[in-house]
């Protein structure tokens, strides 16, 4: 049986002291993938030979004395991140044969730092979904229970880390697409502040909300990945050139004395599973034991985040996805004599049902007569939600809440009911509307399924979130990997 990969921090130590090589780790990763992925379904593309070549190159750099946080580490990218010369599908039939002529900035930064790309990860089509069931190619199965979803839309990214197939992965988070699957799969997931990580080469879903971020086994691992991918980029004018702090150095202090943790009552929604609620309460008590103080806070407009999001995100998506017309790249329908007919047929056949639903919803919300009632009203409500966060984060340092109302649900359980599916993002969406950073840390198993605590912070406060998450991890211990759970007293 193939052995799951160690954490990034462990790999780093073994690589830097010559106890293992990138080639060994990459071979181990490829063995894990070969053994597990026919069941898990996390990968859409595997680039075996390129990965082995990159591992050899990384080993040469290591031998020459070079060190970077990710040098020689086998990893994989969500298939909405453009990779030069490597098929990038966005989980859609529309792009099933698309081989990009350029690299996303994050792929380029990881490559330059010597990370080893194993392949591209399954996701909901164009990152639209909460269960990964909207992939045009295949579903992903949760490594903890194969009858359950991994969450979405970065389901492949979370499952690959949980299954030990990749040391870390990148995902994208528009309404919770890193954090909710991190919670469902028992891994760490970070959505950085809007503007912290370049989105150049991220296939756009909703441009005022999208952020790229890491999924890892531990907070220290996330800190290392963040130190490579964060920072300004002239090719993304919404990226910030503000200095990137020392995320790894920030982890040194593991006591939380003086940290004020706000608990927003609106996030404990009705319909939340009692087991999830209890697990979150336990994690909050642990923060208190570490020296933090807990404070009840209120974000009164948070309950309106879900409806606001389901106007704003589809509206932006309807504009972003207008580019898929079968002219410059991607699928083109065979039928139709005039250009307009070809457009409509191409889009009708190339997009899956959830993507079509959101394009329709967004187009409707932006259309004449409805713009004020829907789009403008949603953007005003967004202002109120941002103000809620601003007020709360003046009295406390961070907010702590559940990541999702439930643990991973069963495949097929919600796929027929869009509104029920959307509800699984109810705890993650508010943060995207505010543009603030969030970190999900696995904190417990409930009926053998992981639950993640969601920490939310001030703009550019990633280091503080990682420090608190790391402290929690150190004191309560990791939940382990599926089938290899650590018994906790």
């Amino acid at each position, binding site marked *: 049986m193939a052995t799951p990969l160690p954490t990034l921090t462990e790999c780093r130590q073994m690589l830097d002291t010559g106890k293992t090589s990138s080639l060994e780790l990459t071979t181990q990763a490829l063995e894990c993938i070969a053994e597990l992925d026919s069941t898990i379904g996390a990968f859409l593309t595997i680039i075996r030979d390129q990965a082995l070549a990159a591992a050899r190159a990384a080993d040469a750099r290591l031998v020459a004395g070079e060190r970077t946080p990710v040098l020689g580490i086998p990893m994989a990218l969500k298939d909405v991140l453009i990779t030069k010369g490597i098929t990038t599908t966005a989980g859609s039939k529309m792009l099933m044969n698309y081989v990009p002529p350029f690299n996303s900035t994050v792929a380029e930064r990881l490559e330059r730092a010597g990370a080893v790309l194993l392949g591209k990860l399954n996701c909901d089509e164009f990152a639209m979904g909460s269960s990964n069931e909207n992939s045009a190619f295949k579903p992903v199965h949760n490594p903890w229970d194969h009858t359950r979803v991994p969450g979405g839309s970065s389901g492949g990214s979370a499952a690959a880390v949980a299954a030990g197939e990749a040391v870390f992965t990148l995902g994208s988070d528009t309404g919770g697409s890193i954090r909710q699957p991190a919670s469902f799969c028992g891994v760490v997931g970070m959505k950085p502040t809007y503007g912290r990580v370049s989105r150049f080469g991220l296939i756009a879903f909703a441009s005022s909300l999208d952020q790229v971020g890491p999924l890892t086994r531990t907070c220290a691992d996330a800190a290392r990945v963040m130190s490579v991918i964060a920072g300004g980029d002239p090719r993304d004018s919404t990226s910030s050139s503000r200095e990137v702090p020392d995320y790894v150095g920030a982890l040194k202090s593991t006591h939380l004395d003086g940290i004020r943790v706000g608990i927003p009552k609106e996030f404990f929604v009705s319909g939340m599973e009692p087991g999830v609620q209890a697990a979150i309460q336990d994690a909050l008590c642990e923060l208190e034991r570490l020296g933090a103080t807990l404070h009840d806070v209120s974000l009164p407009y948070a309950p309106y985040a879900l409806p606001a999001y389901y106007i704003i995100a589809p509206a932006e998506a309807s504009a972003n996805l207008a580019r898929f017309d079968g*002219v410059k790249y991607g699928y083109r329908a065979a039928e139709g004599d005039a250009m307009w007919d070809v457009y409509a047929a191409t889009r009708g056949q190339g997009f899956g049902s959830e993507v079509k639903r959101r394009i329709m919803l967004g187009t409707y919300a932006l*259309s004449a007569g409805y713009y004020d009632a829907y789009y403008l009203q949603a953007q005003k409500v*967004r202002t109120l939600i941002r103000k809620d966060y601003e007020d709360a984060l003046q009295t406390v340092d961070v907010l702590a809440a559940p990541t999702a109302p439930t643990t991973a649900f069963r495949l097929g359980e919600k796929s027929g009911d869009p509104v029920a599916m959307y509800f699984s993002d109810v705890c993650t969406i508010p943060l995207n509307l505010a543009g603030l950073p969030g970190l999900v840390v696995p904190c417990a198993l409930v009926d053998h399924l992981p639950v993640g605590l969601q920490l939310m912070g001030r703009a550019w406060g990633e280091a503080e979130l990682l420090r608190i998450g790391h402290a929690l991890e150190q004191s309560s211990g990791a939940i382990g990997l599926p089938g290899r759970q650590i018994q906790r007293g």
Partner: protein
Amino acid sequence: MQLTRETVQHVAMLCRLALTAEEEQQMLHQLSSILEHVNRLAEVDTSAVSPTASVLDLYNVERPDAAEPSLPVDAVLANAPDRSGNLFRVRAILDEE
């Protein structure tokens, strides 16, 4: 605000989506239930609130007007469903008359 089949067809035309009759019916049903949920937004008094344009303190981002290397034409056209030399080839845009 009840959606009608005509509205669904009009919106599908605006976003150039060819829907089957079955999809139209499903869209009518599902969009109606999503809008029912979204309509809660109307409860919020926003008379004194400005809409969010961006979560960042965004300023105009400028750069020197200098030419930089761009992708080779062949690399860009490699993914085109149809091409003619250095051009993207499409179906007729204008009628003959």
